[in-house]
């Protein structure tokens, strides 16, 4: 048994040494191939980190600044969206949910579908009545202001307007406008508001169709006593959202309880498939590089026909020749790939601190829910997965040249 094992490992040191030196035999060719792998991995790593950063940012913006983890509505509001279709016993529900240990933050909102009228133009919009403090805690609304101020204690009717909507209606901070919407008795009520601030979220569609007012002012116009149309909740743990949503839905079957996955299905899809997409991206780069590896190793084998034949004649078994070609390929690919991963990692580490300013494309990015400042990020498993991918692809690429080497007839190769 021991003798068998010794026989198998005999000469392994020699094979490894020969493989390593063979890499540097044609320095120019090896270095150009390694440079291609290195640059491919730097580019791939950075591109993947950008994609991950974009996705993370999109997710963060959507969850932390817009949807929260889950929302409760009355089913009729979702179907028809009319005034009066609020959550039954909304304030009691709000209080009892606030007591639950899993709940971190909660904001009760009044909603109304109405019209925003400037002196020259009118536009449809959703009016969101919010408690300034609770809303700010939940979605950091004050941080999303690009002009003016957040709600103050003044008794005046104040309003926060999406920057896109303001531009469309030709309004600015301090402008006055009129909000009109139906109240619970289905009578159209109108009230004048002063633009207190302009906000810009990462969702251009939201900015174009939303105004924020203080909840008590909207409630007074709706002529309802503390109605709650929407309860937005953030839990302590994102992972506990599915179970908590299911629990809540079971406890309140007459209500609509929707997690962020249902509120923003495109976000859920992105979350589920996002890393796969970026791995496919890197895989395509590596696949291209593996043809370079195949070509390079094939040339190396053809150049060394006589030598490989001689090794076979002198007693190097097929398996050892196979290992020699594989190790040579693997060393070259892994060395370049690890250097590329390291350089890409450093690039990501630097830019994840400084951020990448994409201000020139801010408007276009906002249309898709992205910020103008991008912070690339990489998952911890990335390096491991890519290393495994490089190992598998380079071994596959080396397979054909290695099999070519094995088929050599020793006697013919020596005389070739």
């Amino acid at each position: 048994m021991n003798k068998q094992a010794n026989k198998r490992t005999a000469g392994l040191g020699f094979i490894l040494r020969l493989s390593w030196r063979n890499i540097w035999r044609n320095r120019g060719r090896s270095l150009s191939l390694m440079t291609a792998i290195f640059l491919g991995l730097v580019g791939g790593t950075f591109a993947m980190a950008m994609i991950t950063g974009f996705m993370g940012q999109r997710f963060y913006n959507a969850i932390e600044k817009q949807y929260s983890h889950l929302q409760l509505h009355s089913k009729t509001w979702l179907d028809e969206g009319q005034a009066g279709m609020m959550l039954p016993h909304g304030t009691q529900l709000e209080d009892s949910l606030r007591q639950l240990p899993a709940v971190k933050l909660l904001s009760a909102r009044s909603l109304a579908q109405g019209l925003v009228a400037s002196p020259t133009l009118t536009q449809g919009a959703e009016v969101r009545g919010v408690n300034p403090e609770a809303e700010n805690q939940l979605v950091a609304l004050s941080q999303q202001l690009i002009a003016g101020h957040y709600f103050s204690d003044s008794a005046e009717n104040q309003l926060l307007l999406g920057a896109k909507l303001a531009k469309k209606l030709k309004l600015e901070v301090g402008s006055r406008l009129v909000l009109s919407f139906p109240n619970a008795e289905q009578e159209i009520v109108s009230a004048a508001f002063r633009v207190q601030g302009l906000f810009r979220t990462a969702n251009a569609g939201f900015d174009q169709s939303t105004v924020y007012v203080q909840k008590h002012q909207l409630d007074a116009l709706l002529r309802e006593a503390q109605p709650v149309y929407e309860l937005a909740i953030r839990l302590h743990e994102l992972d506990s959202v599915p179970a908590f949503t299911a629990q809540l839905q079971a406890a309140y079957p007459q209500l609509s309880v929707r997690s962020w996955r249902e509120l923003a299905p495109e976000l859920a899809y992105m979350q589920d498939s996002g890393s796969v997409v970026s791995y496919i991206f890197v895989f395509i780069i590596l696949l291209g590089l593996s043809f370079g590896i195949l070509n390079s190793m094939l040339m190396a084998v053809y150049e060394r026909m006589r030598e490989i034949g001689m090794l076979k004649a002198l007693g190097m078994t097929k398996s050892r020749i196979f290992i020699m070609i594989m190790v040579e390929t693997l060393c070259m690919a892994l060395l370049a790939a690890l250097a590329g991963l390291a350089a890409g990692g450093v690039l990501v580490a630097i830019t994840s601190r400084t951020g990448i300013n994409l201000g020139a494309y801010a408007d276009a990015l906002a249309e898709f829910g992205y910020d103008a400042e991008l912070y690339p990020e990489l998952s911890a498993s990335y390096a491991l997965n890519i290393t495994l991918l490089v190992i598998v692809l380079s071994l596959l690429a080396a397979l054909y040249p290695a099999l070519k080497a094995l088929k050599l007839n020793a006697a013919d190769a020596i005389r070739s």
Partner: protein
Amino acid sequence: MTPVLQTQNLHKTYSEGPVAVHALRNINLEIHPGEFTVIVGPSGSGKTTLLNMLGGLDTPSTGKVWVAGTDISELNENQLIDFRLHHIGFVFQAYNLIPVLTAEENVSFIMDLQGRPAAEIKARAAEVLAEVGLADRGKNRPAELSGGQQQRVAVARALASRPQYVLADEPTANLDSQTAFNLLDTMKRLNEDEKMTFLFSTHDQRVIDRATRVITLVDGEIASDERR
């Protein structure tokens, strides 16, 4: 004395389209330990084919090749490779050293593949390099050695693992006269000192002059077998 190498009714036939070419016909040979044998004959007489059979690089169409009691014509490809590793030394016309290894490493690697202990490999490599007059060139790579020195390294490589016999295919063909004489003297000395069996395929009269036995092949058959 038991022969180190023996053939029995060795035939090798190649097919060239519909025509069968008889490269070797009914070769019966016995090579004894310590012989310094050359196989001569005109081009196409079957020298290389016979050497391939005797070296386990090719298998006969019919007949047997016995090496130290083993019928190598019955071995499969992997068994043959293993057999060559442990029993046969080779010297080729074109030196065939590995350019990325030093002279010492070129001499050592067969022993490495045999799985011998590192200390033994190092000592034996130094010993055979000294025997071929290259004790001080062990750290040089082939490109740093002359043609004659490279062929000496190849001879040292063939001898290092103490094979049953050494097959040398036109070893002096690429060497100038003086270098060829020196190499042949070295091989002859090793033949006499270490009782190493050498079997050459050659046209070179200098080799033939030193041989203790000359086998002449004509049209794949042994035309004469002369002992001196």
